[in-house]
């Protein structure tokens, strides 16, 4: 397997020996879109990475670098032009309930209440009504939306909407959570609060998490490991960083700031 080429060698960027077996393996993924019939857009090139069980992996990159496409490929919504995605050793060909996806633009069902949205996954998988209500209620409580079960999405704020999105993904009982810039549309304060919430939820319900973001602070705050992509198409792997800071992390911690400086410097080099 081709290891990532490192942008800057003076920093510790390494793939540690895996203690656990990898949960997700991406092997040499490339993606080419065809636009308007003939135009070819090379979005991803030769992406290889492994995600360990219960790891919080952040894919970091500026806008338009193909990181969302990578997530959609792992979700099974797009097929890679080259390479394969393995989940527990099985090739991913189509979306399935073992992976939960949270969208940047929430994508809630406007015609269903919070409860209706969250219980959608179990409902589609044939869970009886009483049971799926219980599951949904559990996750609604987990994301802190009790008393809002009967609200419709348009009655909620952006942060609350994304909580519903997260609860909806969790309620389906996925082994892997895929989050596609989930807080991209929130204001800065709500965003920081939602990051803390995400960490809290992840600590309570350990899952393998793949989190896509363009925000370096957010990445350092949440990640066990950060994979950064180059800031232009086609998206290539730039560097991998291990974040060993103890949780919960502080945005003003010296080590935090040092890491932030390091990643910022590295990413400006790639632009």
């Amino acid at each position: 397997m081709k290891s990532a080429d490192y942008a800057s060698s003076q920093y510790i960027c390494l793939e540690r020996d895996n203690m656990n077996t990898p949960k997700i393996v991406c092997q040499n993924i490339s993606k080419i879109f065809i636009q308007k019939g003939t135009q070819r857009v090379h979005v991803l090139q030769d992406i290889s990475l492994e995600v360990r069980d219960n790891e919080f992996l952040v894919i970091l990159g500026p806008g338009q670098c193909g990181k969302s496409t990578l997530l959609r490929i792992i979700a099974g919504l797009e097929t890679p032009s080259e390479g394969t995605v393995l989940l527990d050793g099985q090739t991913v060909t189509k979306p399935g309930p073992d992976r939960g996806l949270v969208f940047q633009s929430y994508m809630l069902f406007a015609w269903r209440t919070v409860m209706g949205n969250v219980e959608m996954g179990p409902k589609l998988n044939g869970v009886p009504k009483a049971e799926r209500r219980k599951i949904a209620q559990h996750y609604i409580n987990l994301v802190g939306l009790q008393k809002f079960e009967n609200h419709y999405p348009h009655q909620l704020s952006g942060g609350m909407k994304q909580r519903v999105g997260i609860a909806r993904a969790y309620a389906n009982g996925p082994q892997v959570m895929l989050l596609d810039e989930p807080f991209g549309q929130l204001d800065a304060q709500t965003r920081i609060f939602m990051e803390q919430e995400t960490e809290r939820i992840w600590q309570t319900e350990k899952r393998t998490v793949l989190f896509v973001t363009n925000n370096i602070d957010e990445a350092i705050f949440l990640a066990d490991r950060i994979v950064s992509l180059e800031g232009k198409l086609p998206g290539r792997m730039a560097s991998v960083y291990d974040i060993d800071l103890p949780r919960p992390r502080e945005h003003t911690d010296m080590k935090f700031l040092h890491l932030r400086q390091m990643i910022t410097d590295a990413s400006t080099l790639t632009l």
Partner: protein
Amino acid sequence: MAYESVKVEKPLSLILLPILSVFTFFSAWELIVDTGIVPSTMLAAPSAVIKLFLIKLTDPNPDGAILAAHAWTSGKEAFIGYLLSLAFGLPLGLLMGWFTVVRGLARPIFELIRPIPPIAWIPLTIFWFGIGIEGKVFIIWLGGVVPCVINAFVGVRMTNPTLIQMARTYGASDWQIFVQLCIPSALPMVFGALQIALVCCWVNLVGAELLAADQGLGYLISMGRRLALPDMVVLGMVCVGFVGAVIGYAIERLECRLLAGIRR
């Protein structure tokens, strides 16, 4: 980051089916008339309509005018009514959108008149104007003016409030904001109105001519009914539909051209 993967090749069946479908439709139509399933006093076969079309190009009988004259009359009436409805409806709608006084005064009357279908005015216009062109233009105008007012109004109301506040901080007067800001931002909706109003005008034209006329495509249709000539009725309908479709298409293209600069 919504990339769309476009399928390069359309399945052959999806290209053939529409052609097949139209072909089947016309041959079925021709057949049910030719075999007498539907009597030819009720429906004319496509071949008969085409034959009549060729005859009507030069022969003014039995309805008194050649096809081109009918089309010219209808087109003239529709165009005058359309222009008048634009000239009246758009300024009114724009002003109603921005100035409270205009809105307060005009809206109740507009709301009273709006739900009355334009063709309900036909008897009254016959009292007022007789069966000349004025009455028909009035009916067509009524049909076109409603969408003009509504779209212009909504267009102004959708002006970005932040931009208005920005203009106020620069000390712009109400009138300046209206001219420099509200009207440009209402333009997309106004272009929408151009299209909708034209369709409404064209629809009402047929209604206006159906009851009181001595020339025009609508008149051709009602003469066909009175003389029990289904081929003439169908010919009139096809002409009306065809002209309507051409106008609609032309306006749509024009709108795309003109709006290309406004929409990013």
